[in-house]
């Protein structure tokens, strides 16, 4: 018999209690993993929105925390293009619409120019992209097409305007795959924002941090009232992303606190119930550190069981989240392997936080007194 056999047998001595404790830990860990997973996927989607396209700077109105509320004159594009160090410039108008019949309350509509650099990273799966002179047409992201049940040749109503679906595309960014692209002029007309754009994306001639920083300074000096933000900063400073990070950290802290209290409760109870047994083991010559290893080993196994159950629950939960209409197209229904590994770390952390005190207490028991314990 190996020592681990003894630990596992002890753990399943009170099967119901062990499974209930593990289930409690699993729920806490699953909640953390799903939130971290959402945050991770959200950030990755956001990141590929810019970095996948080779965008170095995003130019919007200065002083705004939400990019969607930015409004700039489309003609500023020519002035930016003329600045030294700029390779390419593309205007972008973004808005959000709803499709009540499909239960989609928040769908991103991108107004782009035909052939814009913003199209890089997107692949047309069905149909085609729009031509420069085309209006009242739309390209649907694959997830949006799926959610709306539309295909090439169908019509979608956007802000009261019927648009003909001419293409379905896939993008490196989930945000775009859950969104639609329409000609810039069409979106400006639909939203009553003729001549206006949300902002510009800029490709620099040199993408080194120093050159991008210098270009940023030149743009902001040349055009008053605009902020040229490096793509990475744009991601880091995004309000929604920051909110998700705060929520993730808070949920993780809460889950670890609740989980470790649950673990502590179970292990303290275990040690109390087994006081006499621990006394006997000490009488048989077991050292304090072996008693400590046994109790801590039980806590670690319990924590790992909770972590594995939590991972399974997180994967199920993530697919459950996708049943929520607002999540479709914004959240990727996967929990990446590094996030799953984080679940194991949390499981071990809970084991240590909840198991150390009972283990130390068990090891410190006076054997003679413990044997007399009823």
């Amino acid at each position, binding site marked *: 018999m190996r020592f681990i056999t003894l630990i596992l047998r002890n753990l399943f001595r009170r099967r119901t209690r062990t499974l209930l404790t593990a289930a409690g830990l699993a729920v806490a860990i699953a909640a953390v993993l799903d939130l971290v997973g959402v945050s991770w996927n959200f950030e990755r989607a956001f990141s590929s929105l810019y970095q996948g396209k080779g965008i170095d700077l995003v130019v919007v109105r200065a002083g705004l925390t939400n990019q969607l509320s930015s409004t700039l004159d489309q003609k500023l594009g020519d002035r930016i293009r003329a600045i030294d160090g700029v390779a390419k410039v593309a205007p972008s108008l973004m808005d959000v619409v709803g499709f009540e019949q499909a239960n989609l309350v928040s769908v991103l509509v991108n107004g782009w120019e035909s052939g814009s650099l913003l199209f890089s990273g997107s692949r047309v799966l069905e149909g085609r992209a729009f031509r420069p002179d085309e209006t009242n047409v739309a390209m649907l992201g694959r997830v949006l097409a799926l959610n709306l049940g539309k295909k090439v040749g169908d019509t979608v109503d956007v802000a009261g305007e019927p648009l003909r679906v001419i293409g379905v595309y896939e993008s490196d960014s989930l945000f775009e795959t859950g969104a639609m692209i329409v000609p810039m002029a069409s979106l400006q007309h639909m939203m009553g924002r003729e001549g206006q754009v949300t902002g510009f994306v800029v490709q620099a001639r040199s993408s080194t941090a120093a050159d991008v920083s210098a270009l940023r300074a030149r743009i902001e000096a040349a055009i008053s009232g605009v902020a040229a933000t490096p793509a990475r900063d744009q991601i880091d400073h995004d309000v929604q992303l920051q909110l998700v990070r705060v929520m993730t950290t808070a949920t993780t802290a809460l889950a670890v606190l609740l989980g470790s209290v649950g673990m502590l409760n179970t292990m303290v109870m275990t040690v109390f119930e087994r006081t006499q047994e621990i006394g006997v083991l000490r009488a048989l*010559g077991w050292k304090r550190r072996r008693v400590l290893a046994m109790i801590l080993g039980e806590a670690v196994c319990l924590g790992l069981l909770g972590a594995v159950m939590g991972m399974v629950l997180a994967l199920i939960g993530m697919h459950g989240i996708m049943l929520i209409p607002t999540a479709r197209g914004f959240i990727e229904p996967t929990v990446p392997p590094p996030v799953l590994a984080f679940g194991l770390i949390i499981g071990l952390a809970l084991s240590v936080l909840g198991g150390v005190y009972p283990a130390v207490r068990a090891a410190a028991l006076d054997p003679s007194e413990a*044997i007399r314990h009823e």
Partner: protein
Amino acid sequence: MSDVHPSPAAVPVLRGERLSKRYPDGKVEALRGVSIHVNDGESVAVVGPSGCGKTSLLHLLGGLDKPTEGEVFFRGTPLAKLDGDRYRALEIGFVFQSFHLLATLSAVENIQVPMFETPRPPRERASRAEALIEQVGLAHRRNHRPNKLSVGERQRIAIARALANEPSVLLADEPTGNLDSRNQDEILKLLEDLRQSRGLTLVTVTHSPDVAAAAGRVVRMRDGLIVDS
């Protein structure tokens, strides 16, 4: 044990000098200056009414507890100078009235429990446990959990467990206290056989006149004192 002096013939295997034991509340004085010696290979029964200090004396001799005053010697070396855990693991075997077998382990696995403190690899632990369970006549019950064994069988397993690390001293606290007369006789015979075949020293705490009669020497206690030895 490496830190124990070689035992000259005249040195008792266990010796208690003026042992006193007061429990932390200070009200109960379990032992009051008791001195005792047990020679190598001897069988000693400690008898007396409940609360006279028999079990406290056994715990002090077995290094489970420390005396408030006085000292216990093992083969002439004070227990205070020995590693208590190693002493209990290698030199002493404990047998309890309520057996105290681990409910989650089979009979043969229970015998292996004290061997975790030895460098024996798992396979050797297992083969040694098999030999011991055969010696106590329960090889056919090797895979049964304690709740599937009779009380007599449980005590046999507990005795085999006490012998797991080949101790030189067996300390038994009311080993037949929970047994009927038939099982009592069998356990007494087993203990005596083991003592003789292995040259064990046996110290038994008991209420039973039959157990006392089976011992080579009887130590009588009352109110924390030895009144007859």
